[in-house]
């Protein structure tokens, strides 16, 4: 057998089931690879010692996996990228991780992320930024930057992350891998540290669409611990579709502007032609409210976050500083010292949006926009099977390039936020490589396909056919043909 690390997770799984591959040997190879992390992608790695025994697998037959540090893992540090949870070891394991363990997937480690999943570059981690394996001077995207980087950088065969407004899809695009945000409710949120509860969703970050399908099949399901979970009826089968005939792909007029990178636009247009080459039809659709997505998102998500993050008060677990006997002072010092600037900014925004006298003008209005956006998609899906956009308006940008401009940072989510607000599934697949403005190694560009709620099977089938058609073989450093 060639290099074990070259196998996709699906290939490895099939080989292990067939008895052609030793699970122990395969997992050991990945543990060794993970140990060589130079990207600051892992915050914790399983090393076979007692630490992590509570999340050990009985029988490994599924590829080992990297888990975003937002999922609770019993006895194993879980920080959500925040100083306020430094040293915190949860007393329980999240449903998503439990399902992975039950399926036989050992945990390789916990991956770095923007603090409480707030960010698009992974620069908001209290534990330092993750480096993009394609160019270490660039960001991997965020907030699931660690999970995207380990998959792209051959530090894990696959990973899970969370997506609230693009946090799986955008880093997948920046790192040249596949990232899927499933329908809200497809996968349990129990044990997934909440950022914005009505938007957060767990999903796979993988090398291939088939791996994403395999992983989604393991993760999906109704969970009695999450009353908002519903699962995916009938489960998920491996995709096998070879062409796109009979499928209509809608390009939103409102999202086709020219105010984003020309390289990204080139790859997008080229991918549309590939869709046509595979028998698919391209049509224009209208999503008139989607351009207000960012505004609505940056009211709703911070509002929910301001409430979700109020529990980090220094009383029961995590960091506690100051106070000297005074309760209010202890709250204030702990939260001032524990949270980073972006988290504080969003707590302030959200608290304001919910406060008496402003609720209707901000939160109420944002919810109305959200409803409109969902209706826009429903309307679009009455004429097309999918809506397609670039995943992000640019390729991976340089570390520090946007840290002083929160609004520019927020616009990274322009193409991904509307699907989150509508609760519908969307996948990003690598569609090509472009040379960034200002030069440097060529960087991957993501192509986003969104479908109606609970259309994951159809979405994966189409993404698979397109993936085969594109034949993206890019690897960091290798810069193979796209």
């Amino acid at each position, binding site marked *: 057998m060639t290099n074990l690390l070259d196998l996709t997770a699906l290939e490895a799984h099939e080989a292990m089931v067939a008895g052609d591959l030793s699970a122990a040997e395969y997992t050991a190879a990945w543990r060794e690879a993970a140990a060589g992390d130079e990207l600051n992608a892992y915050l914790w790695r399983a090393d076979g010692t007692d630490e992590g025994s509570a999340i050990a697998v009985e029988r490994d037959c599924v590829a080992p996996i990297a888990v975003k540090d937002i999922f*609770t893992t019993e006895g194993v540090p879980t920080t959500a990228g925040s100083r306020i*949870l430094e040293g915190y070891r949860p007393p*329980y394991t999240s449903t998503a991780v439990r399902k992975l363990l039950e399926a036989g997937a050992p945990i390789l480690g916990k991956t770095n992320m923007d603090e409480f999943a707030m960010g698009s570059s992974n620069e908001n981690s209290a534990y330092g930024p993750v480096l993009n394996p394609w160019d270490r001077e660039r960001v991997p995207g965020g907030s699931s930057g660690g999970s995207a980087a380990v998959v792209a950088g051959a530090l894990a065969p696959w990973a899970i992350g969370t997506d609230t407004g693009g946090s799986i899809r955008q880093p997948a695009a920046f790192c040249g891998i596949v990232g899927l945000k499933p329908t809200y409710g497809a996968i349990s*949120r129990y044990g997934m540290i909440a950022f914005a509860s009505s938007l957060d969703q767990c999903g796979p970050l993988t090398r291939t669409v088939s791996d994403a399908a395999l992983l989604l099949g393991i993760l999906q399901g109704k969970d009695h611990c999450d009353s908002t979970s519903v699962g995916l009826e009938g489960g998920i089968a491996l995709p096998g579709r070879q062409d796109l005939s009979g499928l209509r792909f809608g390009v939103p007029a409102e999202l086709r502007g020219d105010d984003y990178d020309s390289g990204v636009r080139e790859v997008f247009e080229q991918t549309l032609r590939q869709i046509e080459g595979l028998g698919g039809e391209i049509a224009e659709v209208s999503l008139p409210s989607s351009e207000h997505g960012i505004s609505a998102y940056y009211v709703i998500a911070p509002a929910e976050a301001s409430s979700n993050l109020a529990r980090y008060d220094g009383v029961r677990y995590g960091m506690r500083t100051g106070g000297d006997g005074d309760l209010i002072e202890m709250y204030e010092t702990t939260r001032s010292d524990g949270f980073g600037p972006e988290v504080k900014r969003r707590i302030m925004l959200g608290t304001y949006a919910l406060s008496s006298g402003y*609720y209707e003008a901000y939160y109420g209005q944002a919810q109305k926009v959200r409803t409109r956006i969902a209706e826009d998609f429903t309307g679009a899906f009455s004429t097309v099977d999918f809506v397609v956009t670039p995943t992000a308006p640019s390729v991976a940008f340089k570390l520090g390039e946007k840290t002083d401009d929160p609004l520019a940072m927020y616009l990274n989510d322009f193409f991904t936020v509307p699907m989150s607000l509508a609760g519908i599934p969307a996948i990003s697949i690598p569609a090509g490589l472009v040379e960034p403005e200002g030069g440097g190694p060529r960087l991957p560009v993501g192509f986003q396909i969104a479908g109606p709620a609970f259309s994951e099977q159809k979405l994966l089938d189409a993404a698979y056919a397109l993936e085969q058609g594109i034949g993206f073989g890019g690897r960091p450093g290798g810069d193979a043909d796209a």
Partner: protein
Amino acid sequence: MPELEAVIGLEIHVQLATKTKMFCGCELSFGDEPNVHTCPVCLAHPGVLPVPNEQAIRYALQIGLALGCEIAPRSIFHRKNYFYPDNPKAYQISQYDIPICGAGRLGDVRIHRAHLEEDAAKTIHVGESGRIHGSDASLVDFNRGGTPLVEIVTEPDLRGAAEAAEWARLLRETVRQLGVSDVNMEEGSLRVDANVSVRPAGSEELGTKTELKNMNSFRFLQRGVEAELARQRELVEAGGTVEQETLHFDPGSGSLTSLRSKEEAHDYRYFPEPDLVPLAPTEEMLLEARESLPELPAARIERYEGIGVPADVALTLATDPRTAGYFENVVEAADGIEPRVLANWVTGELAAALRQAEVDGGAADSRVSPEALGALVRMVQEKKISHGSAKTVLAALVLEGGDPGPIVEREGLAQMSDSGELEAIVEKAMADNAAAVEKIREGNNKAIGAIIGAVMRETKGRADGGEVNRLIQEKL
């Protein structure tokens, strides 16, 4: 200045007696070691989610139906945000604009709403004051945190402190009979807050209200409201105005101290709880809740008054459903005898006889069958035995059970039917008590007691008092 009228509304928190907490699987308990009934969910660890307790929803439906409330087809949980160590998520899951139970009525008081929420944990302040101010340390016991609560809010329909306390008793009894709560005020499973204001009698407008907390008995509720009404009346009559504030009642001193003013009121930043879907009771749940409703005190009182039972006796029976059931069996067994008379025997003579014999439990658990009591009352009504003898028989029935007939016979208590024999005894008693006879003749009627007493002793109580009286008068 016109008379000032009291306007009172109540907010009642009822802890539901479910097996587990509102949003997690922890057992409910009272008085266990601190912090033994906790889990990641009720300690608000990162990543946890609430799952509503179906039994609590069923109990809330029962309360709502018992109070005649409209049930919302889809009610919404909200988050009420505030920081305090007894509130680990820093928000309480409650209901806001669409509660599970809407408008209703109990007795003369309209119900505004009743909603489901979770209880806070318990804070214990260590130090002399026993309150947070001036304490040396504060401890939190999360056993209570997350206990299901139904908060019942009335319209401001009560017009006095005593009326408020009486209505609160009726509410407690109603909830108790549903079997959904322990309704123990001292243990805090029933907590009553009062909103108090005054206004010129006849006015339709509401005055500025104050909210009274910490009244952990009906007596304290009455005293607290009385004290606050007196304070507000004095203030308004002196030309002052009432400030909106929350007051803490100290039962020891009977005084009220301000907890917080309007300016210090929290902005709770309510918003719909995204972790929960709307609460939509199924037809099956509604049907089951309707079918499980027992006859409730208010309905029972009305029914008893309708068959002639005096109001106070009806209330006594309505607050004790087992004795009420016993009473109804007696009524059935003693067909033809006025329920009013039977109700008095059940709540009066029988209750006294049980107390005297130090028998635990009420009439329904005693050895006196409804048939036996009915037969005994019938004997009295038909003048077969005297009232006094009946008490003797009842005392025997309490101890040995059975029918009254054989006891009457065994004890020789049958009323003397031979008036010749009684006449002779009366004549002898009058002769033996000549002084008393003399006094009666002089107009002192009280002296007749001595003669009657002598007759009763002689007849061992078998004589009918009325008949003895008549004979004495005849022979004077």
